[in-house]
């Protein structure tokens, strides 16, 4: 890049252009969804809204927020993300810290158990039956306990703890501090990058999860997170839009169709509410997770 011949500079510009186009393709759907959610619902039905609202209004947001299921689902989503991340961090962190000590007895046996668990699983059905048997159906804990320990995250954390200088722990060890004190008082405060990375992984997985609620929250929708509400919103009265669109029909059918089309703005509003928390958080984690992934990609 230092010897900028003409061919080189043209090459750089071409590459920059291609990458820019790809980034715009990544960005466009979000902007467009935002525009549609802020557009007048009846106007949206006419089609052709791009990345700015033609007739700006908060109607859709007012409409969906007046449905009491939505604030409730938001609380469930936030609750499972915060508590799930905390529980997972503490459990996985303690596990990883102990595993980072070479003098831990049975360390190799534990590791073998973990590696097998990473590559093999019993699949959906046995887990479903187990959870039913444990009485975790229709129980908030089903969001948190089964996924609390992630082996992959444990290995990343262990790799990080191992590269911390041993001198860090020595004086505390001298003062007779136990491993818990050392972990919480000394190790955690210097582990910000890895904590941020793992929190992001676990937090995003928690926020985006929908299958557990669909499988295990059978009796009531009160404990449904936002994702499942979004699925519901997509499916009810809207899913067969496409089929209706291609079929001509009676006046009544067309009326019904128009009604259905008007919920498009509302659907995009629910979707925007679902993704806003994530879009607000992830850019700030950027400097950490690149490093975290790098640690994770190392073998062993």
């Amino acid at each position, binding site marked *: 890049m230092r010897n900028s011949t003409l061919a080189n500079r043209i090459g*750089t510009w071409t*590459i*920059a252009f*291609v*990458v*820019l186009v*790809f980034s715009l393709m990544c*960005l466009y759907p979000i902007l467009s*969804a935002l525009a*549609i959610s802020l557009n007048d619902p009846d106007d949206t039905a*006419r*089609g052709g*809204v791009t990345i700015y609202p033609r007739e700006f209004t908060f109607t859709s947001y007012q409409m969906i927020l007046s449905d009491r299921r939505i604030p409730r689902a938001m609380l469930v989503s936030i609750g499972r993300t915060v508590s799930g991340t905390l529980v997972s961090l503490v*459990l996985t962190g303690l*596990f990883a810290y102990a*595993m980072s000590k070479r003098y*831990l*007895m049975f360390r190799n046996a534990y590791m073998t*158990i973990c590696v097998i668990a990473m*590559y*093999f*699983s*019993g699949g*959906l*059905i*046995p887990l479903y*039956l*187990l959870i039913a048997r444990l009485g975790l159906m229709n129980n908030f804990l089903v969001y948190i*306990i089964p996924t*609390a320990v992630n082996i992959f995250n444990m290995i990343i954390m262990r790799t990080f703890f191992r590269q911390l200088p*041993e*001198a860090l722990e*020595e004086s505390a060890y*001298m003062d007779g501090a136990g*491993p*818990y004190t050392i972990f919480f008082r000394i190790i955690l405060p210097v582990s910000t990058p890895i904590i941020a990375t793992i929190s992001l992984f676990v937090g995003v997985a928690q926020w*985006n*999860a929908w*299958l557990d609620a*669909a499988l295990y929250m059978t009796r009531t929708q009160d404990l449904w997170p936002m*994702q499942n509400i*979004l*699925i519901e919103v*997509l499916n009810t009265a809207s*899913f067969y839009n*496409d*089929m209706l*669109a*291609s079929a001509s029909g009676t006046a009544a059918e067309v009326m019904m169709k128009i009604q259905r*089309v008007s919920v498009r703005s509302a659907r995009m509003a629910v979707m925007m509410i*679902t*993704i806003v928390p*994530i*879009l607000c958080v*992830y850019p700030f984690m*950027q400097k950490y997770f*690149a490093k975290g*992934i790098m640690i994770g*990609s190392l*073998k062993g």
Partner: protein
Amino acid sequence: MFRPVAICSAWADHGLTSMATTTRALPRSGGGLRLNAFKRQLSLQSMVLPSLALVVVFVYFPMYGLIMAFQDFQIGDVPGFSTWVGLHHFRVLFQEPNLYRITRNTIAMSGLKLLLAFPAPIILALMLNELPYHGFKRVLQTVTYMPHFLSWVVVAAMMFEFLSGDSGIVNYMLERLGIIDTPIVFMGEAEYFWPLVVGSEIWKETGWSAIIYLAAISGIDPAQYEAAEIDGANRLQKIWHIVLPGIMPTIMILFILSVSRLLDANFDQVMMMTGNLNNRAVAETADVIDTFIFSYGIRLGRFSFATAATFIKSAIGATLLVGANQMSKVLNQESLW
């Protein structure tokens, strides 16, 4: 001044090594000593046990539950203690008329992803690496991996909106440009399902997967570039002879893992793009092994039958993992073990 520190660290080193030696020497000594050593690190061991217990309960119990593939499990049975039926469920499975279709769909989707979605992040990483402006590069990167953080629920919601046959923006534009006369119902026709699966996968994961390749690129010794420049290598030659060989181990590892997941068509993605399997119009190309297991196991309650399908699938997956790893070894490339 610094002597105390040195003494401390020597002492601590001694402490740690002596502990390590005791542990290592244990197999030769009696059980009592071993128990004592375990007691001495009891609080360290207590950090392991809760997590290990969870792994055993939520991973190993279900693995044991696979035994029901050879039994006739009924609701209320203690897993593993139902009536044995031998290979009955496997025989039924291999007579299943949809078996060919779901296997074909699964392999087609995974294969197309391997062919098109796997190289995409490598290309993106190579391109990002060629860009000189740091700030510009970082902004582009932030934007390209944003879709990774969205759930498939959200991505499918957007696809239904933008690809809708009912004045979705894609049809609107295509009609305006005169490319089509009547709207295409993209999400409702079987022939578009595979392209949309691969396309949405590329859209969602390319930027994120590029991070790992960029990390690998940044690990390449800069002296290599300098040497190449002295030799008069141009940009493409540098990419071909330095960057690509430099990230080859990473590519191979990820390739092995991708091949081993050939029978895992993305369950979340397929479920959401078919509206929880309610859109039967695309079933011909959309039904995959995992949705088959879900439909029969959870929706129809045929637990043993669905578990038999899981069993076969896991066995093939394990074979693929070992096979791909072995092949990589033979080709003198990186391997998982």
